[in-house]
């Protein structure tokens, strides 16, 4: 029996409606408020389209005409024009603009929607999906897109000589997805194990042109193909834009792809924009100044708390609109080294790797004060890895570790950690002082502030913290090699669905930061989490998956391998001339739907 994919665009999530609510309530700037009707109409239209169900015919329309060009910024330069070889922000953005995947996660609804595959059917085994490709889709160079390109892309991504960083996220139990093509417009993908999110994982894989890249793959030179010196005429993609020029260190210029396969509801060929220019601006302060001065329409990342003052003035002057996306999906966390071998000879192991130690630390920090100090109030206290920004998977029912110095004191005393000599610093049973080194990312202002707050709060309890702000490369090396006592760090979730970040949850995962790559689970609770993850991957029903995942989150929170304190609010800023903006908490925040963006002509 097969399930047909339907209504793949669900209703708008709370984020979009919350933004509209703020506009109506007058919490936005006057010029922004003037656009409410247009945006409301546009969003109403989108909801209607959801009912119709085909994003191939989108319904948002440019509010004041078509065409125009958008100027944005990026912090660095793409390492390559081939997303299979690099996954950093700039290469990812390049890929989102110039290429397309079989399905897409709609960043505002969080639902999977048909993209190059116009529809699909899923078998009940939870492993097999038959995708029907849209007919008459062509690459930007005019070559037809067929199932052969899909097969080629999968072959390239799994090729050991290519060493694609995308391959790991497309392997399940270490095995690749099996892909076959019964005909030119049909592709069958079969997961090696049941995988409940199904085709959702295909959002990350751009389809590449076999006719251009196959010779390189066969010759073993795929890694050199499409490097940043490749002439734009030698590139081709299925995305809304095509690279027109790249001036190293300065800018990338994209022109509209006239062969793009999407049209809006009125039959107007997308994208609306004639082009996009991305200026390379490494410094975040300069980036912000250029936005405030009206030189650019959008910046690469979110708005830092310290930038709101300047932006508020620019918003008041009608130059900038600030989009509040609510609580960020990602939050930084404190974690201790729980690998037994890493601290085998360290006398502190008996308490530094003990659960009560982590609970004591969690109780010792006032999360409200932490949010106010580190994020200047623009944050919300949290107690687990899934933040309120993740509407589907967040649960407010986690065990909470409220600020309770007495409780923390009792837990530490229970571990034999007391101030034996009256110097204000606790000592363990051997008389050694209770102190540890805390690594963090040097130059990241919020992380540096956070570790200072932790140092101050823990010193109140007689715990010494030696701060070690560390250059990023060294930090990564020390975390990877488990050469640390504790670290304050974060990572970017690539998907809202926890199944997209299995490496984090599973004890065998490489992103199981506190004790990665375990051969067998080191603790009973980790074994329990592994079992629950395995169970939820085989369940198709979303409600049941959420239920199982709540249990996973609760188990993790009870053991505090990662101590979370606060999640910042995420805002993005764009120029007021930019319309159809539907910002997302996932990167790229604004350009994820670049084909629908439009700019108002100059007044």
């Amino acid at each position: 029996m097969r399930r047909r994919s339907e209504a793949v665009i669900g209703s708008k999530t709370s984020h979009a409606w919350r933004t509209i609510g703020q506009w109506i309530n007058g919490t936005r700037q006057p010029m922004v408020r003037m656009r409410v009707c247009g945006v409301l109409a546009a969003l109403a239209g989108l909801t209607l389209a959801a009912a119709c169900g085909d994003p191939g015919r989108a319904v948002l329309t440019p509010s004041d005409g078509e065409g125009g060009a958008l100027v944005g910024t990026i912090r660095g330069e793409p390492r390559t024009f081939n997303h299979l070889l690099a996954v950093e922000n700039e290469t990812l953005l390049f890929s989102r603009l110039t290429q397309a995947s079989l399905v897409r996660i709609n960043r505002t609804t969080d639902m999977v929607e048909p993209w190059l595959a116009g529809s699909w059917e899923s078998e009940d085994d939870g492993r097999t999906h038959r995708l029907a490709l849209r007919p008459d889709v062509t690459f930007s160079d005019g070559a037809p897109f067929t199932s052969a390109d899909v097969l080629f892309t999968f072959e390239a991504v799994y090729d050991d000589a290519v060493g694609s960083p995308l391959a790991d996220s497309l392997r399940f139990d270490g095995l690749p997805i099996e892909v076959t093509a019964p005909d030119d417009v049909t592709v069958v993908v079969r997961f090696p194990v049941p995988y409940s999110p199904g085709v959702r994982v295909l959002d990350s894989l751009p389809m590449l042109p076999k006719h251009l890249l196959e010779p390189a793959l066969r010759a073993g030179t795929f890694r050199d193909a499409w490097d940043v010196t490749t002439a734009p005429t030698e590139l081709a993609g299925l995305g809304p834009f095509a690279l027109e020029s790249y001036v190293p260190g300065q800018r990338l210029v994209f022109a509209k792809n006239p062969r793009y396969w999407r049209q809006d509801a009125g039959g107007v060929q997308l994208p609306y924009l004639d082009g996009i220019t991305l200026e390379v601006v490494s410094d975040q302060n300069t980036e912000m100044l250029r936005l405030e001065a009206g030189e650019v329409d959008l910046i690469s990342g979110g708005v830092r708390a310290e930038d709101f003052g300047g932006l508020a003035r620019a918003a008041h002057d009608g130059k900038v609109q600030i989009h509040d996306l609510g609580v960020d999906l990602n939050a930084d966390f404190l974690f201790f080294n729980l690998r037994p071998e890493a601290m085998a000879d360290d006398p502190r192991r008996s308490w530094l790797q003990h659960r009560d130690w982590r609970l004591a630390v969690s109780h010792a920090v006032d999360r409200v004060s932490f949010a106010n100090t580190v994020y200047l109030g623009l944050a919300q206290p949290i107690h687990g890895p899934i933040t309120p920004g993740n509407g589907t998977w967040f649960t407010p029912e986690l065990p909470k570790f409220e600020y309770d110095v007495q409780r923390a004191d009792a837990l530490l005393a229970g571990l034999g950690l007391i101030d034996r000599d009256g110097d204000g610093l606790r000592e363990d049973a051997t008389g050694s002082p209770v102190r540890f080194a805390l690594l963090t990312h040097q130059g990241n202002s919020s992380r540096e502030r956070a570790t200072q707050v932790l140092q101050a709060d823990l010193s109140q309890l007689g715990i010494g913290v030696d701060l070690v702000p560390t250059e990023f490369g060294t930090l990564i090396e020390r975390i990877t090699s488990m050469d640390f006592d504790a670290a304050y760090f974060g990572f970017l979730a690539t998907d809202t669905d926890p199944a997209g970040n299995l490496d984090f949850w599973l004890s065998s995962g490489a992103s199981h930061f506190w004790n990665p790559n375990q051969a067998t689970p080191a603790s009973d609770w980790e074994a329990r989490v592994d079992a629950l993850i395995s169970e939820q991957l085989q369940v198709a029903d979303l409600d049941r998956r959420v239920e199982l995942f709540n249990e996973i989150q609760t188990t993790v929170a009870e053991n505090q391998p990662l101590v979370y304190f606060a999640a910042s609010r995420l805002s993005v800023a764009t120029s007021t001339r930019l319309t159809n903006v539907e910002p997302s908490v996932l990167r790229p925040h604004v350009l994820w739907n670049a084909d629908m963006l439009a700019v108002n002509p100059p007044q």
Partner: protein
Amino acid sequence: MSPFALFLARRVAFAVLLVLLVSSGSMWLVSLAPGDYATQLRGPGVSSATLERDRERLGLDRSIAEQYGDWLSGLVRLDLGTSLRFARPVRELVGMRACNTAILAATALFIATLIGLPLGVIAGSSSAAGLVSAIRGLSVFGMSLPPLLTSIVFAFFAARTGWFPIGGMTSLRAVDSGALAGLLDIGWHLVLPALALALPIAATLERLLARSMHETLQEPFILAALARGIPRRRVVWRHALRVAIRPVAGIYGVIVGGLLSGSFAVELVTAWPGLGRLMFDALISRDVQLVAGCAAVGSVFLACGNLLSDFALAAADPRLREE
């Protein structure tokens, strides 16, 4: 071989040694630092098997000495190796960036010379105490301004007034507007970063020259010239300046080196597409050969600065040519 030719040959040999030492040193230092390109590429959540596979593919599993040997043998053929990050020859990557940095540094040096030397002559020769104090005050203020801070202030100034671009080297609209418009556009973008770099150098030049000029004007040959009735202005600008300029010419090499490190900071703030930003990114991503390539080009600048300084000194002081 004449003594002057020998002097030049020695200087050129020293310059080559400098380039070799700086680039080799930077390569070893980056190689010895914790982490490598593979860990940067993958981030913290990566299995050791994947890392090992990447290292083997990228050639990072070989010993540092082995990698250095390969790089050194390439250097003999003027091959600076291949960037891991961009998978392109380093020479291609650094070429254009080095030109951009050279444009910025040369403009800054030109502005600094244009401001610093005349002010130094005036401050060192004028008898108007108020004027001398004002110039000295400005110079002390200028010397205390790090280019990083000045460029941030200038960026704010550009944002508030709109008179200058906030960053970058060219405007998009100037791309297809012809060579002259393109040059003017670059000049317009150059003003603030070049000024940010030039101000502390101009102040340094002014202070050095003022002191040197003041001492030179006490020399007997100056008093003799004045006694012969040569106008004071001519004595100062033609006779005294030739002597007073020697210590200033001697530190031009050092200034060029400082200019380069200063320009790295300015490039980051003003989005100037120069060597500094490329090297910064290369350092962050542990792109060893690209770091070494950038350092090599940077040390070429320094060596050229030193050579120019030597030429200038030799030109200003005939005794050096004869020694």
